[in-house]
């Protein structure tokens, strides 16, 4: 039942989401853009912490690096912001290599601290980049986003101002990123690598005994998620238009919220981040006028989930109902007719 249901509803959902810039207000587009970006970050963090067991609290490093690399591409090297996105992802992935070399020496919980220190180092180092405004930051040149590849096409498609077209384009890119990431995550987890990763998560000793190299798999996931997070960082700051070390390397915005989203939705499950981001958005709307109370509620929910429903909303749902519309499992091949006497 679930198997015929899922492939049908997902494209419909994506189609509905894609229509938002055509029928919705600009404010809604901007709101949902932020939600989609948080979902991208959440999908990456979930892959890292939920599947590879790498609990990082320093992913803001790759958001900031991606954003700064995009800014550098546009401002210093005169590239199109879209090309800058790719540069951002690649630079983030390249810098993830030395980061992994350092942080992988730290075990368990201290890995988290190590990634946090690295993110702070990145923030402080980029504050020294005077060409990009140093500690105070800088803005994208006037018109850079509006002259971006594809903006004219989008304008032809939906009309409206250039700024609205930029919003629509970044929104669609974020939506596309979400879809691609969801599909890629699903494919990865069902691949040989994904199977090995789940084996390591269950029992590292046994995994090594059947030939799985935990370190290699974890390093691979670390690099891939740095790439995804870096691209998302670039995209976020095309839309925001202004960068500063504090904003680009914000622990609260790019990691803390993301962790709560994943934990509330269900860590180590594919749909978990999606559910989590919906709850997060709902709460944000509900408590929009009480900034600090909102954060307290979020913290309390996170604690409550860990105490009473460790698998999160989605994990709890799957456990209770036995339904899993997005199964990661491999069914055994149909057995040949039994030949035992």
């Amino acid at each position, binding site marked *: 039942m679930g198997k015929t249901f899922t492939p049908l509803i997902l494209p419909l959902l994506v189609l509905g989401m894609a229509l938002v810039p055509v029928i919705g207000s600009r404010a809604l587009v901007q709101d949902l853009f932020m939600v989609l970006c948080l979902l991208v970050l959440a999908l990456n963090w979930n892959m890292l912490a939920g599947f590879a067991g790498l609990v990082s609290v320093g992913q803001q490093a790759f958001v900031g690096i991606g954003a700064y690399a995009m800014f550098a591409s546009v401002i210093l090297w005169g590239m199109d912001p879209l090309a800058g996105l790719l540069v951002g992802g690649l630079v983030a992935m390249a810098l993830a290599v030395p980061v992994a070399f350092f942080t992988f020496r730290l075990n368990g919980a201290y890995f988290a601290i190590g990634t946090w220190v690295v993110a702070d180092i990145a923030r402080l180092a980029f504050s020294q980049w005077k060409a990009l405004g140093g500690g105070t930051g800088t803005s994208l040149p006037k018109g850079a986003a509006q002259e971006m590849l594809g903006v004219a096409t989008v304008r032809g498609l939906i009309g409206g101002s250039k700024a609205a077209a930029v919003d629509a384009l970044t929104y669609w890119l974020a939506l596309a990123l979400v879809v691609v990431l969801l599909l890629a995550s699903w494919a990865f987890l069902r691949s040989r690598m994904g*199977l090995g990763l789940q084996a390591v998560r*269950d029992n590292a000793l046994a995994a090594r005994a059947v030939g799985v190299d935990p370190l290699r798999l974890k390093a691979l996931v670390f690099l891939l998620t740095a790439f995804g997070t870096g691209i998302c960082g670039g995209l976020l700051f095309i839309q925001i238009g202004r960068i500063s070390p504090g904003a680009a390397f914000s622990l609260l915005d790019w990691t803390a919220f993301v962790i709560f989203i994943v934990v509330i939705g269900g860590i180590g499950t594919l749909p978990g981040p999606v559910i989590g981001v919906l709850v997060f958005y709902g709460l944000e709307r509900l408590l929009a006028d009480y900034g600090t109370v909102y954060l307290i509620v979020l913290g309390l929910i996170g604690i409550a989930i860990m105490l009473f429903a460790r698998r999160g909303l989605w994990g709890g749902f799957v456990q209770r109902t036995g339904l899993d519309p997005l199964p990661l499992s491999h069914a*055994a091949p149909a057995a040949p007719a039994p030949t035992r006497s």
Partner: protein
Amino acid sequence: MGGAMAILSLQNVSKSFGALKVTQEVSFDLAPGEALGIIGPNGAGKSTLFNLITGNLRPDQGAILLDGRDVTGETPMQRCASGIGRSFQIPQPFDHLSVYENLLVAARFGGRLTAAEAPAHCADILRRTGLAALADRKAGGLPLLNRKRLELARAMATRPRVILLDEIAGGLTEGECVELVATICDIHAQGTAIIWIEHVLHALTSVVSRLMVLNFGRMLMIGAPDAVMAAPEVREIYLGIEA
């Protein structure tokens, strides 16, 4: 020593934990397709010997050769890919994966099979180990006998040429034990060499052609099972009954 015939060869392997010598100058050759049994009292260093062979521990001295090639410096992953499979004394299933997926991991990584080849290979092993009906069950929920079968099946899925079995019959009832021995005989008949640590002697002696006795990390005796079991020093050390 380490003659061209041997598939696995240990040469003067020693290992200490602090002051405790857990393995002392152990040497033996295993012929291709041979079945060797290891007995000895608890704490004699049997499981340590396995961990040395699989690469979970590095020996302080001595060498371990696979097909005449020195693998002493290799990781467990490399040794698995080179043909050493193992089962753990305490079953270590991948709890959240199905029985079939437990085998699939082993076949894809250690067995180096492609996505196209692996399913048939795993299905064959599931059938031979009597796990076919449980293929889609989560491994974490299996009772002991099936956990032991899964240990065996998963080790087989890595396509080993030497398979190490660590007390795989321990804790089973007589009937269950007989079933498991039949499966092990089947593996042996297909040409896989076996080293088997076991306290359930009658199970062991119905499969192996040579028996080694370990005591305080030392090889006390190695030879034909009947001769070894009849030796007075073995009866004394192993059973504590003065003959």
